[in-house]
């Protein structure tokens, strides 16, 4: 029922633009081809919404997901639910010409259904900080905002380079990154937060574990005895209180139980660099405290 209409629409648009088809390879290794730059984009995660806006294609966002909070103007865009509960009719009624998905979501069944409507899907799943730049340029290509996207991507690479030049060579500091206190969760080396830790000259003590977000036991942390324990506390929380009483823990005795002030390390978007900068500064302070304690 929709297919002929969409087909006609696509034909008309492609004739009007008379452009070469646009094609990029996404993070799932699939080739995404558009006949013309995307003008009605539906984004299914807060992070991909941020990426699209940063790539200069904010004006073409027709739908976003639940929990969209940045940039502020994105909050005014109609929402189509989140990865767990996508409102299919809402998506289709928005007549999107591109759907952008953070592939870390279990929405495969829903996306299968979307195929029926012939809407192209772009998967963005950056693993390293530089992969964010790839997502930015891809999205810029798909939306025809190549220049803005290239600027954003370059800006991101430069900020990363600057941090790398300044901090990556400093004396290594062993880091336990606490994602969650109860149960105690951390990240392994595949997770982007580990990339930020390495960028700041830190070593993730659980980098070798197999799960991306492993649940570890407290004793393993005490035995590994990291130089610093880092977390992001929610409102009114003190997730690090449990470590304070452990006198054999260097991080506790050196005052290296560090709450981060930026929540953006949880989100693979250009704002991730804000979090990384904050992390580098905090790790460097922790390094100084370690040095002072050693004297």
């Amino acid at each position, binding site marked *: 029922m929709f297919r002929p209409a969409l087909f006609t629409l696509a034909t008309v648009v492609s004739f009007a633009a008379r452009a070469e088809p646009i094609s990029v390879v996404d993070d799932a290794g699939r080739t995404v081809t558009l006949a013309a730059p995307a003008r009605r984009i539906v984004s299914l995660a807060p992070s991909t919404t941020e990426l699209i806006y940063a790539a200069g294609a904010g004006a073409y966002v027709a739908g976003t997901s639940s929990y969209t909070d940045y940039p502020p103007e994105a909050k005014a865009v109609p929402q189509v639910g989140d990865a767990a509960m996508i409102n299919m009719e809402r998506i289709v009624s928005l007549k999107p010409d591109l759907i952008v998905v953070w592939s870390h979501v279990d929405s495969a069944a829903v996306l299968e259904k979307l195929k029926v409507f012939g809407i192209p899907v772009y998967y963005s799943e950056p693993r390293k900080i530089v992969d964010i730049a790839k997502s930015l340029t891809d999205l810029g290509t798909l939306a025809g905002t190549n220049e803005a996207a290239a600027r954003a991507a370059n800006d991101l690479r430069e900020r990363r380079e600057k941090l790398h030049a300044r901090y990556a060579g400093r004396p290594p500091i062993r880091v336990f990154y606490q994602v969650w206190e109860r149960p105690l969760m951390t990240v392994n080396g595949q997770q982007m937060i580990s990339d930020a830790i390495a960028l700041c000259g830190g070593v993730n003590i659980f980098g070798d574990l197999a799960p991306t977000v492993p649940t570890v036991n407290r004793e393993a942390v005490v035995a590994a005895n990291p130089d610093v324990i880092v977390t992001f506390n929610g409102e009114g929380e003190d997730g690090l209180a449990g470590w304070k009483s452990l006198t*054999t823990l260097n991080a506790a005795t050196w005052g290296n139980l560090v709450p981060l002030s930026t929540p953006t390390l949880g989100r693979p978007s250009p704002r991730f660099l804000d979090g990384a900068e904050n992390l580098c500064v905090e790790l460097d302070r922790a390094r100084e405290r370690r040095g002072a304690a050693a004297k």
Partner: protein
Amino acid sequence: MDSPQRQAYAAHRMTHPERRARPEATSAPDDSAPYRPAGFARAVAVWTVLLACALAAVFVALLLGSSDIGIGDSLAALVSPGDSLAGAAVYQLRLPRTLAAFGTGGLLAVAGCLMQVLLRNPLADPYILGLSSGAAVGALGAMLFGAGLVAVTFGAAAGALASSLLVFVLANRDLARLHISTTVVDSPRLILTGVMLAAGWGAVVTLILVLAPERNLRGMLFWAMGDLGGVERWWPALAALALIVAAAMPLLRQFNVLLRGDAVAATLGVRVPALKRFIFVAASIATAVAVTTAGTIGFVGLVVPHALRLLVGNDQRVLLPACAIAGGGLLVVADTAARTIVDPLQLPVGVVTAFIGVPAFLSLLLRTR
């Protein structure tokens, strides 16, 4: 001298001569001897064996841990902790966690035993009346308002107690009523009230998870699977366990009579409504403390009472204290396995209790037929 229990047994023997063959009836003391619980020596023997096993489990739990800290180091640290890494691991991490595990496991098994007596239903477990989902609603509700860990724990306790209070008020008539019929399940209204409330709480949990601005599924994991890693205080569970067992001890003979049905128990001089209320309140407090300490750990409360029933019989005087010891021991073993098998990773303890308990229980069931 002329205790309700003796009257009960005397009356019971007169009204149910055919049941004389049962162990309880035959082992009941004759009227001339001073009263002593049936098989007291055997009960003490059962408890001693279980306690020895539990203590061994605690000892092993203190020695095993991270692969970076050897058993020898742990043993040395156990004797003289000093300021060593092993000392900190044994006394600051393993000991509180093990004690909390023992208390929680004991509470769950006792609560399960009490619920099975109260509802006279073999499928009854500590969570059957909706207490754990009530706790989850309280905890998630607190998280929804951005509360910290302390407030979330408090929310869980409040949710659990509010949930059981609601069951109590709604089903109070049922607790107070005597069910004359002994042919059908005796407490349909109480159990249905609880199960309905559990379903309602479950829906509220789902609703919160869908509507919450930040879907913190990781925090939710704790309330769904249980975890002893983040235990802050070890003593509430142990203290609650000791108090509840102590309070129940003098009443256990009446529990035995209650199992014969409300009408029989009432005829034999048991104040059935008061006794049922006591069981309900004790089981609720036990479960609430356990859930607040370690989240919802399944299996222990259902299977420990049944397994012990197969081993030592259904005399509540032996069974209930045995549940407290064996439940605690089982959870200590399970928690030790959960934190050491895939070290430094940690398994959900509820999975381990099931892996240990299901084969053990089934083999017991097959052997005793």
